[in-house]
């Protein structure tokens, strides 16, 4: 892999609560190369969104980065002061959230929301910003942009709104986009279109993407590499083909049990008995051991590190045993 664009090392995110400090992310390490698409999968609550929020510096208090390092384009960004981080957001790192219906301010036209974003980052004048906004709307496939630009979000359908959100996220041509379940809230029939649009645009502009999704079909079609998260950790990471076809971690194997058709609801395809532990009740040793068919003594007492396992990397004692024995 070339010099990575984003480098997350041993990231630890804590959430102080009345009943003690919860560790929501622990020892999360991964990298994204320029132009690369990293898929992030895992059950609800695994920490996918928190990882994305930590990267763009928008963790909601009381959640906070308690350890590790986030590097972007060769410089450390997790300790940046707010104004410096703000200049990075939108300009260098864009974000797309799950629900397009609520991502846009209902009181402003989409044109004015595009224009303000463009003006903040590109320093264009009023007319220039509007011209750029029209270009963007055209690029994301909004029909009749000259008319639509002066309309309000409620006048757009969900799919069209997500196109506007994508236009906003890409307005300043960022080098990395964090797309947190960009299609979950949409109609199944629209999901594929939006993913295709996102894929086309980021490819054209060489934008790297951190794509959080529950949809293994989308991962298989879109991502270069995939990270599998479980209970606040990455349990497996590797090239999509390897992880999908030859999962190394028993949890990944469970997830891959059935690759769904595009758009199928993911709750139904989990083939693993039991549920992911709540944050306060993550078991010692391998967090997955209560649900793992292969668990043995070591799994209950020692936490496995993310180590090379076959073509990928996995955090599972089965591989360490194989290596050493």
């Amino acid at each position, binding site marked *: 892999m070339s010099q990575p664009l984003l480098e997350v090392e041993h990231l630890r995110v804590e959430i102080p609560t009345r009943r003690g400090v919860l560790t929501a992310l622990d020892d999360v390490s991964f990298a994204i190369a320029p132009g690369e698409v990293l898929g992030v999968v895992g059950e609800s609550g695994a920490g996918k969104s928190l990882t994305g929020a930590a990267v*763009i510096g*928008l963790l909601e208090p009381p959640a906070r980065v308690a350890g590790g390092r986030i590097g972007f384009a060769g410089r450390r960004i997790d300790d940046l002061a*707010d104004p410096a981080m*703000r*200049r*990075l*957001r*939108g*300009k260098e790192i*864009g*974000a797309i*959230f799950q*629900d397009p219906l*609520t*991502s*846009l*301010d*209902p*009181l*402003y*036209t989409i044109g004015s929301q595009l224009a*303000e*974003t463009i003006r*903040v*980052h590109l320093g264009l004048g009023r007319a220039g910003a509007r011209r750029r906004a029209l270009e963007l709307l055209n690029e994301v496939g909004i*029909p*009749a942009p000259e*008319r*639509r630009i002066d*309309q*309000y979000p*409620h*006048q*757009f*359908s969900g*799919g*069209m709104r997500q196109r506007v*959100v994508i236009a*906003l*996220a890409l*307005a*300043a041509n960022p080098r990395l986009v964090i797309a947190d379940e960009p299609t979950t809230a949409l109609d199944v029939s629209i999901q594929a279109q939006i993913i295709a649009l996102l894929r086309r645009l980021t490819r054209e502009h060489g934008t790297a993407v951190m794509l959080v999704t529950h949809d293994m079909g989308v991962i298989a079609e879109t991502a270069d590499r995939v990270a599998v998260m479980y209970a606040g950790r990455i349990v497996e990471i590797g090239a999509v083909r390897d992880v999908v076809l030859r999962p190394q971690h028993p949890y990944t194997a469970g997830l891959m049990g059935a690759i769904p058709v595009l758009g199928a609801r993911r709750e139904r395809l989990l083939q693993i008995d039991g549920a992911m532990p709540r944050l306060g009740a993550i078991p010692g040793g391998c967090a997955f051991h209560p649900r793992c068919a292969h668990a043995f003594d070591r799994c209950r007492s020692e936490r496995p590190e993310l180590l090379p396992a076959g073509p990928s990397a996995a955090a599972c004692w089965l591989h360490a045993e194989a290596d050493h024995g």
Partner: protein
Amino acid sequence: MIAFILRRLVQSVAVMLTVGCIAFLLFRYVGDPVNNMVGQDTSLADRALLRQQLGLTDPAALQFARFLGRAAKGDFGVSYQYARPVGEIIAERLPATLELSIVAALLALAVGVPMGVYTGLHRTGLLSRLVMAFSLIGVSLPTFLIGILLIVVFSVELGWLPSFGRGAVVALGWWTTGLLTASGLKSLILPAITLALFQMTLIMRLVRAEMLEVLRTDYIKFARARGLPNRLVNFGHALKNALVPVITITGLQLGAIIAFAIITETVFQWPGMGFLIVQAIGFADIPVMAAYLMLVAFFFVAINLIVDLLYYAVDPRLRIERGGGAYGL
């Protein structure tokens, strides 16, 4: 747009008719108008004649129509207490109440909105906590007590401000204003603060709650993710959205201020309508009470109408689209 205004106007008229009906019933059937107009020694025959002349023997519907017709022209009959036309008396008192109410409303808004925004943005700051604690006092202390406390401190102890009356006024046509003289302005301070305090704390708490709500929304998170400066996120996006529901409540509060003025005017012997109505109730001066009722209702309805229009202007979701394109694709 026009349909919307028309619909609101029709509703307003309906409300006014209902209140007019209540005022009419009060006017006509509580106490006997004839008894109140004639002396003890008037004979029964004379009373019956007078009754006829006043139209009091006509069908109720006809009397109601006549009452409304006169009311629309500002004619509410003659005050029992002052033996003068009610319209005249009210016109004398109206400027004092309106000036007090408007100044109090502006004060409540000018202080309440920024404090609400501040405490919403700096939820855990020391100043926010102090302001919140202070606002509890504002909502829980009764108005008359606040007024009396202010009088004790600033009039009796310190002697800085007058404790009663309106000071010197200047007449501008039929309108009298205390805003143009030093004594008028000084006299206005304590009553305006007293009247504003409750609404101020209410507005502050409302703005704060709305700000907190809005700051949690996805579009604010997304605005931050787009890299917009804090100022633009907090004031351009968050505050504007927070103010949409605030407009309604604040509008209703403005109406309430006019109604609440009764207590403040009584405490400060402010020569406005509130003071007048308290006296009218003491004297069972029904025409004055009926007129006051209709006037206050009129203010409420008018403010409501303005609030609706404002709401409509601020929130694009209410503007119904015509022509294709909406919800397309």
